[in-house]
């Protein structure tokens, strides 16, 4: 397994801990443009994703990239996550991965 470039599971609130580092999140797409997507994080924070979105976009989008600011990600990989994703579960995962069970994640 390649551990040279880990990406941390984040929701909107945890972004600020990883500015300048690689993060991984899932957003609900609100709008998209050429070269950017505006999405809502699982804890209801509006996030701007820079990068070319796949077409057509599904409701949920996974974003892996560098957190440029608290609310901006420069995307390296964008993946459609379908229309029936459970945001509450992902949000809980982020809390566990950055809290009580941080030692289990890289």
């Amino acid at each position: 397994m390649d551990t040279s470039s880990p990406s941390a599971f984040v929701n909107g609130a945890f972004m600020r801990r990883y500015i300048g580092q690689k993060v991984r999140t899932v957003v609900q797409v609100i709008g998209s443009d050429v070269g950017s997507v505006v999405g809502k994080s699982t804890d209801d924070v509006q996030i701007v994703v820079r990068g070319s979105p796949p077409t057509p976009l599904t409701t949920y989008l996974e974003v892996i990239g560098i957190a440029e600011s608290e609310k901006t990600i420069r995307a390296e990989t964008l993946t459609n996550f379908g229309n029936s994703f459970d945001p509450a579960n992902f949000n809980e995962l982020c809390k566990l991965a950055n809290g009580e069970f941080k030692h289990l994640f890289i």
Partner: protein
Amino acid sequence: MATSVTPDAISSVLSNPSFDSSSDRPEIVVQVVDLKPIGNRYTFNANDGKTRVKAMFTASIAPEIISGNIQNLGLIRLIDFMVNDISSKSTKYFLVTKCEAVAPALDSEINLESKSDEEAPELKKQKLEHSPANDDAKIDVSTGITLKPKQEFVAKSASQIMSEQRGNAAPAARMAMTRRVHPLVSLNPYQGSWTIKVRVTNKGVMRNYKNARGEGCVFNVELTDEEGTQIQATMFNDAARKFYERFQLGKVYYISRGLLKLANKQFKTVQNDYEMTLNENSEVEEASNEEMFVPERKFNFVPIEELGMYVNQKELIDLIGVVQSVSPTMSIRRKTDNEMIPKRDITLADESKKTVVVSLWNDLATGIGQELLDMADKSPVIAIKSLKVGDFQGVSLSTISRSNVVINPESPEAKKLKSWYDSEGKETSMSSIGSGMSPSAKNGSRSMYTDRVVLSHITSNPSLGEEKPVFFSTRGYISFIKPDQTMWYQACKTCNKKVTEAMDSGYWCEGCQKKDEECSLRYIMVVKVSDSTGETWFSSFNDEAEKIIGCSADELNKLRSEGGETNEFQTKLKEATWSSHIFRVSVTQNEYNGEKRQRVTVKGVAPIDFAAETRLLLEGISKKSQASH
């Protein structure tokens, strides 16, 4: 040593209910009258010369009686006893737990009241009949030999006693005397003659049926003996017509000459390994003048929050609850025969703060349902015997023909429920059990999703399912399907029962009593299921196996017979392996070659809803961390 009874002892005890424990009671000597065995215990009348009261020795005293220490007409000192109510009547009885013999059998019953002199001869005569040992006992005293009362009962042959007393004793009394009354729990199919004394605690309606073997009528009753053991008795045709009127709900009967067979566990409504069939030659005599301690009716209440485990099972349940609301009657058209049937829905709540809707059908809807509607504002407590649990609106209950409804029953459960409701229940907000069946239920209630276990929970507990089948949900992977097992049987296309190949051609169905040119294959197979904690074999029947394999047994058989190099049959099994499912299983104990074995049967298979599963895992994690902090 006292040689006579304590005068007025009984009336003083009865009028002083505060004598709860015997410690502060004065010493009481009474005469034992009408001693007789009932099951492994003995009942008698305690006589203080003026008053007689029903009494019973606990089983621990039985050896004293069998050894002859305590005799009929003898005197005993009561050391420890309780005064109990006979539930059905307003009289009391003594339950004697400790006593000592004071004097051997006297000549006659002590009677200190002179005014009953004129009755005496009559009384004496009766007494003689009731205790044939009387004369013997007299002799015994003079010769110093004591006969055991139990032997006294069999000293004369049954026919002798019958002939001596024919005409002056009621038939029921004859039965009681000449035969030992067996406790229900001792009955088995291999036993010769027996007589039981039971109360009819439930009576079904007469039903007409029609099947391949003709038509007829049938009804059944539930019988309960004084120990609380229950058995179901069924009567067909002539026997049904003969006994339908005789069996009255709540009355006590002597019954003999019935047949016992193993109970069909799928349909059983009472806790007994056997059930009884009565035919025309069976004897049923009402025990009219006899008091007896048979409990009125026995309920096994299931709390509303635990109903989830019974959904769509054949097992019937008993429920007690506070009436929250009562609907007007509706008419429902029955699909099978287009008949219109009255129905009424009532909502019940219990201490689990859950509510459930019970549909009353037919007479229960119009009769007791109307009564409930009239008193609904008083929030009565009702107990219902024999309810079917369905999945309409999550969980719903329906009455069946032999269901029984009791309004404001006199039971500790009812009292407890009523006081809970009066003190806090009516202020509490309640939720329907049906809505709690969704996986997101976070209130800790037990529902379909929260009785989730891992496989090791089942395999590590070999006694699971010993009493009755237990149900669980579990998530696991199919890890192995043995390809050379018998995977299916040839089934009748109409009734799904096993068919045999007929001599010439076609298939014979024993159930339908007819031949068909074709049959269908139905799965009956075992699969190995694994999860992170272990593995075990699950038995699976047609519908569930079809979901596991992904095609019907007929299709799989076709693939197998095709053979060939690619072998689609093997591929199909391979595809089914290492896929995960949610299983609803029952765990039972089966005896095989004299060895008890756990049997896990698949009752339902569902694909995994990953979001719901994740929620369940998150719930588990948060519960665990709460517990450790």
